[in-house]
């Protein structure tokens, strides 16, 4: 297993380098300009100077290796220096955002907590809702619950978040005044009260995002459960005199979870990048919002770094999905 993982990791390096190159060239070709967000009152020659100060005067074959160097050598050095108080980086230039002139990694680090809180939580919630729905739907196939579950999850899937988001805000924040419509990213959880507030403010965005997750995972779960409910070992378990709940929740579930877990793992990258609209609607300024702002502002270093990190996540999650398969399914052994 370990060598398998290592081998996959090694193999993914060239892939990732290539992906980095393609993304870079794509951004290079794309017609955006970091100066677009500057007011028109700033004269063109000043804008030109600003562009040059950002390093945009250099051709791509200079800037790409530079970025690679910064990403793979300078940034880890900085990180190391920060953790152990050494001085390897020695003042080398880090990846700097065009928009804020802040080191890209610092900004990303700042965003990760709220992304995890909201987007991560919504995924967890979505999965937690989806699994029972999938399980019950399969166990009671073609029952009313199954039919309506399918119907509702499909509806959830087919309504875009830029509709559900404002709709929920209008209902719960404006009309009922129960929940805040704007997420407070500065909120610190220190005690029960603040925790409660944190939960409150997460309800709406989490609901919107979870809707999407739920629909997909529930369908997978249902299909997988159906596959396994018909297996011989289920009959064996029953013949042992086990209660129905043990049979379903232990024997069937464990087997059904194997493919679903990989689906869940493969879905993680897309939620990080895919929560853009919801983040926007609720002003949960997470990674998605950072990415979209960077895209709109043609903040190439930021876009490049975030998309590349997402690519790493995608490749990594592919790997994790495969490894998890091996972990949960003893029949599969990688070596």
């Amino acid at each position: 297993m370990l060598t398998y993982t290592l081998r996959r990791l090694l193999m993914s390096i060239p892939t990732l380098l290539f992906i980095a190159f393609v993304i870079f060239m794509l951004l290079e070709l794309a017609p955006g300009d970091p100066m677009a967000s500057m007011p028109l009152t700033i004269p063109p020659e000043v804008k030109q100077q600003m562009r040059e100060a950002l390093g945009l005067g250099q051709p791509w074959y200079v800037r790409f290796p530079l970025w690679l160097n910064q990403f793979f050598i300078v940034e880890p050095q900085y990180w190391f220096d920060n953790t152990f108080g050494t001085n390897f980086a020695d003042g080398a230039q880090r990846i700097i955002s065009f928009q804020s002139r802040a080191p890209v990694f610092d900004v990303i680090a700042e965003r990760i907590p709220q992304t995890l809180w909201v987007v991560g939580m919504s995924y967890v919630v979505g999965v937690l809702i989806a699994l029972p729905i999938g399980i019950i739907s399969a166990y009671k196939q073609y029952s009313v619950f199954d039919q309506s579950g399918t119907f509702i999850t499909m509806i959830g899937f087919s309504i875009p978040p830029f509709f559900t988001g404002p709709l929920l805000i209008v209902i719960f924040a404006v009309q009922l005044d129960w929940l805040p419509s704007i997420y407070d990213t500065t909120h610190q959880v220190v005690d029960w009260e603040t925790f409660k507030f944190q939960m409150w403010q997460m309800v709406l965005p989490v609901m919107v995002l979870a809707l999407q997750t739920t629909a997909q995972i529930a369908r997978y779960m249902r299909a997988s459960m159906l596959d396994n409910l018909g297996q011989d070992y289920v009959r064996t378990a029953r013949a042992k005199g086990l209660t129905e709940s043990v049979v379903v929740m232990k024997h069937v579930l464990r087997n059904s979870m194997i493919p679903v877990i990989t689906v869940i793992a493969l879905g993680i990258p897309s939620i990080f990048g895919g929560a853009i609209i919801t983040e926007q609607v609720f002003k949960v300024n997470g990674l998605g919002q950072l990415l979209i702002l960077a895209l709109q502002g043609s903040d190439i270093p930021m876009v490049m770094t975030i998309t590349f990190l997402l690519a790493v996540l995608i490749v990594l999650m592919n790997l994790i999905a495969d490894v998890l398969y091996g972990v949960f399914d003893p029949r599969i052994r990688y070596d």
Partner: protein
Amino acid sequence: MPDGALPVLDVRDLKTVFKTRAGEVHAVNDVSFSLKPGELLGVVGESGSGKSVTMMSLLGLLPSPPADVRGGTVAFDGKDLLKVDRETLRSVRGGKIGFVFQDPMTSLNPVFTVGQQIAEPLRKHMGMNKKQAAARSQELLELVGIPDAKRRLADYPHQFSGGMRQRVMIAIALACDPQVLIADEPTTALDVTIQAQILELMKELRSKLGMAVIWITHDLGVIAGIADRVIVMYGGQIAEHAPVRELFGNPQHPYTRALLKTIPTIHGERAARLTVIEGQPPLMVGPPVACPFRDRCDVAFERCTRENPPRYDVGPGHDAACFYDANTGAPRDA
């Protein structure tokens, strides 16, 4: 085999139907038999004749819907298993009646270790703690002849060969010292050499533990070597029921006779051409109104298409459901 002993299991008029789109499939029709302590009852019959469904009906293991156990009684331990509540039924399953299924490759849960799977009924029925269960599991594995049992408890089913898996299945079924062991084609999926091993094991265990066994198979050779009494099923009904030697020596039902003829052997005369039971097995949609074997029977006559024959006694402990009397070569009286 103690002939006069009270049966441990007594099945009367068991009836199971499946509701399908094509109609009601009468998979088991008024099946009655009994099992005496320590005896091995063989059940043979072609595929789809209702062997498995009969046995699973006893313990309520059939999925419902589509299955529906319509009637009959299953007397076991002073209770009717078809009427008891779920909890009692569960305590019988795996506790007093062990079940071994046909396909060892798929009957074990692939994601739990063998040890966990053996321990489950022990903890459930015998109330053992983890440690006791582990110790007992090890004993059981040793009992069924798996070497290095202690280490192998931690292995997963896929790490076992087919024969060993079947032994594990047997160990699970034996876990709680059952009074009855039902083995549904336990060796069909195995090689002859491995099958021989399992049959040996079975004989050994039976003499050691003294339980009653129902052994389903469609291999007459296996039956010949292991059974005390045999039931031949056809079309959801019992066609013939006899002590084993009686069955092979004096088959009374035309289906049994045909069956005995179709199989080639490695000894004796090599037939130039195999005998074939022409035609197809019955559909069993709708309740039986005639003999299910009539279309394929070489002695069938008019009455066979009108009435479903009851089981006629043809000798001591020997009965056959046929209007045709093989001994006399003439139809029985109405």
